[in-house]
């Protein structure tokens, strides 16, 4: 019964067409974006742009890939999702609410005193937050240890590490990339949000990381590069990664090109900034644009 249970908790159903699967994950991504806008409004600012950009990746993980039990975040057999980029917590909290691990109402407390949802994600604060990210370049090293530890103890659980492209500047990311290949951690999947933006500006003006795909391949990983805002492409990449890991035992990376502010044209067109400023009167417009876009796409 464990397998059935696991599938149910991941949100999948046993019989589902590809279109139904895409629609289910897209709907989750829409709700994650909506939650993120609400959280951003309470704060008046924040990492809304990143949350909107990464919402499809988070939805693919929480609505399709991850095996977990919402009522038991420490379930031993759960898959682990590690958020390296602590400032993406706003998007991760939205995904945790979507997954039923934290109540939707609690999202209103984001970034407030005594909240379980601090601005930068921390494992000691939030159910379902596996690590304390924020100091960039840590997640993949921890992921290597967790993947080794799970395999060592005979667990079939998988480890997913969410990184940003800015995080590829950190040497530790590449130490971990080598380690994962050396130890043949086929139970490890990295997801890199390539929004081409970091704190001081565009990634190619701060520190050139391209060619990213070739770098990961040279480090021994099975690398795929996809449109990270295309749910169908993301799900196909996850399926490929699982098939490859089963055959080669290699760790897998899904390199996701995303757009900051995705789903809200007002923000997509705004000058890109690491910490996006949104005026008080604009939040409702953002939500309306998001819903119009989603419903338009759904009915199209």
């Amino acid at each position: 019964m464990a397998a059935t249970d696991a599938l149910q908790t991941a949100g999948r159903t046993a019989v589902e067409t590809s279109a139904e699967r895409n629609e289910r994950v897209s709907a989750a991504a829409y709700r994650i974006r909506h939650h993120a806008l609400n959280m951003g409004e309470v704060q008046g600012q924040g990492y809304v742009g990143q949350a909107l950009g990464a919402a499809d990746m988070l939805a693919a993980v929480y609505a399709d890939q991850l095996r977990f039990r919402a009522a038991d975040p420490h379930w031993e057999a759960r898959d682990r999702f590690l958020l390296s980029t602590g400032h993406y917590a706003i998007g991760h909290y939205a995904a945790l609410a979507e997954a039923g691990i934290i109540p939707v109402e609690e999202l209103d407390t984001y970034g407030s005193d005594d909240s379980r949802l601090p601005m930068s994600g921390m494992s000691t604060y939030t159910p379902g937050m596996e690590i304390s990210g924020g100091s960039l370049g840590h997640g993949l090293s921890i992921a290597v240890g967790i993947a080794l530890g799970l395999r060592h103890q005979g667990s079939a659980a998988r480890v997913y590490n969410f990184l940003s492209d800015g995080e590829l500047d950190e040497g530790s990311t590449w130490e971990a990339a080598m380690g994962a290949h050396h130890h043949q951690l086929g139970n490890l999947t990295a997801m890199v949000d390539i929004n081409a933006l970091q704190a001081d500006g565009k990634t190619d003006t701060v520190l050139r990381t391209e060619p990213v795909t070739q770098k990961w391949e040279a480090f021994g990983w099975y690398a795929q590069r996809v449109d990270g805002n295309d749910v169908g492409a993301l799900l196909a990449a996850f399926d490929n990664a699982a098939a490859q890991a089963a055959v080669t035992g290699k760790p897998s990376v899904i390199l996701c090109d995303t757009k900051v502010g995705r789903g809200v044209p007002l923000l997509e067109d705004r000058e890109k900034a690491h910490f996006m400023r949104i005026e008080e009167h604009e939040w409702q417009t953002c939500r309306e644009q998001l819903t119009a876009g989603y419903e338009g796409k759904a009915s199209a």
Partner: protein
Amino acid sequence: MSTTTEAPDTAAAAKPKLKTSAMIASFADPGQKTASAPFGHALVKAAQENDKIVGLTADLGKYTDMHIFAQAYPERFFQMGMAEQLLFGAAAGLAETGLVPFASTYSVFAARRAYDFLCLDAAEPNLNVNIVGGLPGLTTGYGPSHQATEDMAIFRGMPNLTIVDPCDSLDIEQAVPQLAASAGPSYLRLLRGNVPTVLDEYDYTFELGKAKVLRGGNDVVFISSGLMTMRALQAATALAAHHVDVAVVHTPTIKPFDAETVLAEINTDRLAVTLENHSVVGGLFETVASAVVGAGLGKRVVPVALPDEFLDAGALPTLHDRYGLTVDKIVAKVLAELG
């Protein structure tokens, strides 16, 4: 006279024999009782009783005695390569899955290079990650790249971290299973290779978090940790010949510090001296000094410690003498203090 016709070996014999920095294998005195690789054997023994224990290293297994464990339990040993950030990040990950990792490298690399990873990945979530640091303080003649003279100063500021500075093989043997059994991260200042066995001659057992009085004395009280407890005991014997009666208190756990035991010993009219294999900044001396001030004791404490400098390269005996860690230097300092 022609030197060109001399055989090479004759020429070499004519040169004065140099002390070299290759004399790093052991700080044991000639003829002293030692135990080989006590950490490695203790970890194997602890692993026999606790199947959660695993070992890791960053390309220094042979130099941190981790190779003993790797040979005994190859399936429980993970080589992480010369990548200390990965070493400790992965150790935290292993601990997240319920395992009890012991991760070894040199103290300089653990403290200086990987601090952020230990701090945020192991200490903040209070995971049972055990850092094993080789070459603590001045235990190599290779110069500042290898001499971790400020490792305790760096690590003392890390919340949740237990710091152990063992004196000898017995301390190490007894500390390892206690560190494995204790929740939260730890840092062990490793003594490797042929490690002196000293404390077996005293009524002593290692207890995590406890200072122990090894011998009483009416004139002077030594508060010491690490290999300097061995020197403190030897200096106490030497000072007896000068009719100076010295007590020795061993404080192998630097954090959390057993201030109660130490303050009770210091709060007398005896000369109080701290002895440590570490910079005078941020180590045992300042740990004791802050306890003394915090308790409101107006008591002078004299440090025997390394200077706040980058130290020279050279042979270890030369350097210990140069920087005041030898028995002779300790005796001279105490006699000067007593006037």
